[in-house]
């Protein structure tokens, strides 16, 4: 890889990561059905739906959930292309895992590729089932993340009795990863502004190692300073917070609908 490729790709990658965080935040604040729900209710019902996806034994249940998620997606005002692109990003990995099932599952022949390679109906069903299950779970997760600001997800985790220290560490990690993305982006831009000609791969690797080392040292210094800033404001080992979330009628309505849907789907699976 030449010098310009190396810098350009890294700068583009870091910038796109920063832009994506900002865009996600904007989407989460758009006026839509899911955005208006209480995050605790949303988190609970989405986890419930993912649980149902995991329990489903019939492919049509997964189809219903996928149709439901697609309908929800339209109500959130998230551009469909943006959403689909993110969901499809994970599918190739699942496809690699599902692929052998097409050929090794015994059953009725569906398609013959070569003289001895046969795809069975049961194999296609198993692979399709796996793909659909993953697609449902990712779509639900993606919809939750895109319609809820990260800090609000953390706020609702507190309500589910997760240890406060764990939630605060998660929040601080996310907050400072963003800061270091900025710092790394600035370092790449600074190098590009001072570079002429090309550098070899080994030179680029050496520079990258030095940059990682310096970022590591900065992060250590920052963590010490952040700890002092916490002490300065009265932190003595325990973090206290106040719950400012409120349930509305639409939350109860949503909760009731999802629970009813869940009961029907479970009943139809195990009857």
């Amino acid at each position, binding site marked *: 890889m030449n010098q310009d490729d190396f810098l350009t790709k890294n700068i583009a990658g870091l910038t796109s990561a920063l832009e994506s965080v900002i865009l996600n935040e904007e989407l989460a604040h758009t006026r839509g059905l899911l955005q208006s729900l209480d995050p605790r209710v949303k988190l609970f019902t989405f986890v419930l739906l993912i649980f149902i996806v995991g329990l489903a034994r019939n492919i049509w249940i997964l189809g219903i959930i996928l149709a439901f998620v697609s309908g929800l997606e339209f109500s959130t005002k998230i551009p469909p292309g943006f959403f689909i692109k993110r969901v499809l990003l994970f599918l190739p990995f699942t496809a690699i895992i599902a692929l052998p099932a097409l050929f090794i599952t015994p059953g009725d022949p569906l398609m013959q590729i070569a003289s001895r390679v046969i795809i069975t109906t049961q194999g296609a069903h198993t692979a399709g089932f796996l793909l659909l299950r993953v697609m449902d779970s990712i779509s639900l997760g993606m919809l939750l993340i895109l319609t809820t*600001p990260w800090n609000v997800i953390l*706020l609702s985790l507190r309500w589910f009795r997760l240890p406060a220290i764990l939630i605060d560490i998660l929040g601080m990690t*996310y*907050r400072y990863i963003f*800061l270091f993305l900025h710092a790394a982006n600035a370092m790449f831009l600074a190098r590009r502004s001072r570079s002429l000609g090309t550098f070899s791969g080994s030179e680029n690797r050496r520079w990258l190692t030095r940059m990682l080392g310096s970022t590591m040292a900065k992060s250590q210094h920052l963590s010490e300073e952040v700890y002092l800033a916490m002490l300065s*404001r009265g932190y*003595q080992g325990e973090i*206290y917070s106040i719950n400012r979330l409120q349930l509305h009628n639409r939350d109860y309505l949503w909760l009731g609908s999802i629970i009813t849907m869940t009961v029907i789907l479970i009943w139809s699976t195990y009857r």
Partner: protein
Amino acid sequence: MTDFSSEIVFEARDLCYDYAGNIPALQQINFSIYSGELVALIGANGSGKSTLLKLMDGLVFPNSGEISAFGQILSEKTFQDRKFVKSFRQQVGLVFQDPDVQLFSSNVWDEVTFGPLQLEIPSEEVVSRGQQVLELLGISHLKDRPPYLLSGGEKKKVSLASILSMQPKVLLLDEPTNGLDPRSQGNLIDFLLQWSSHGNCLIFSTQDLDMVEEIATRVIVLGKEHQIEADGQPEKFLLDPDFLLRTNLIHEHSHRHKTLIHRHPHAHEHEHQS
């Protein structure tokens, strides 16, 4: 319970602080700061201003000598007493130079309520204080915003709000106007003057001589040797270009119009004749 009615707020006696045991940050520092004083800590880069503010806030402790607040020595031992920590933190607030250090919560509201909640102030009071400071600094609209989506000026305001919600009697500010545009600097100076008019004590480190002139009633100058070079009324130093030049606070191309130091940048091959 510590008695905070004493007139002396901070007192340093032969205070020394080293980094990593052998890099001097502060040497033989002696001063007394009284309630109601507006003290500017000035000095060149690396003279120890930020370290001194951290010592005053009980975040680091001297290698030798001592520093006390409200008559109580600040040491690792005194900060093991939770009662003392609570009283001290209620009275003294430090705004860090880098707002990214101070804004560690996931949104502005959590940031502003963090301090009062750790001091175990009742929730209703915390909410009321949070709303008050956000309104006071004109940042109510940022309430739900995460820190990484704030501009530099907004971050500074949120940092200040997060300390003001603790309602301290002593405010320590590390380079408060650093990175602010001129209008925001002016607003901050107005706000600090108003805040200190209620008898509160303000101690700030800065290299902004305009801010010193507008706010400070006393100046402590830290020199290159990490010692107090001078301590007194601002007029005494701000009108002495030789002193300011010697302590790296102005450039040799600067001069003064009435009480205001003014700079005409130019270039030449030879040094100025003294």
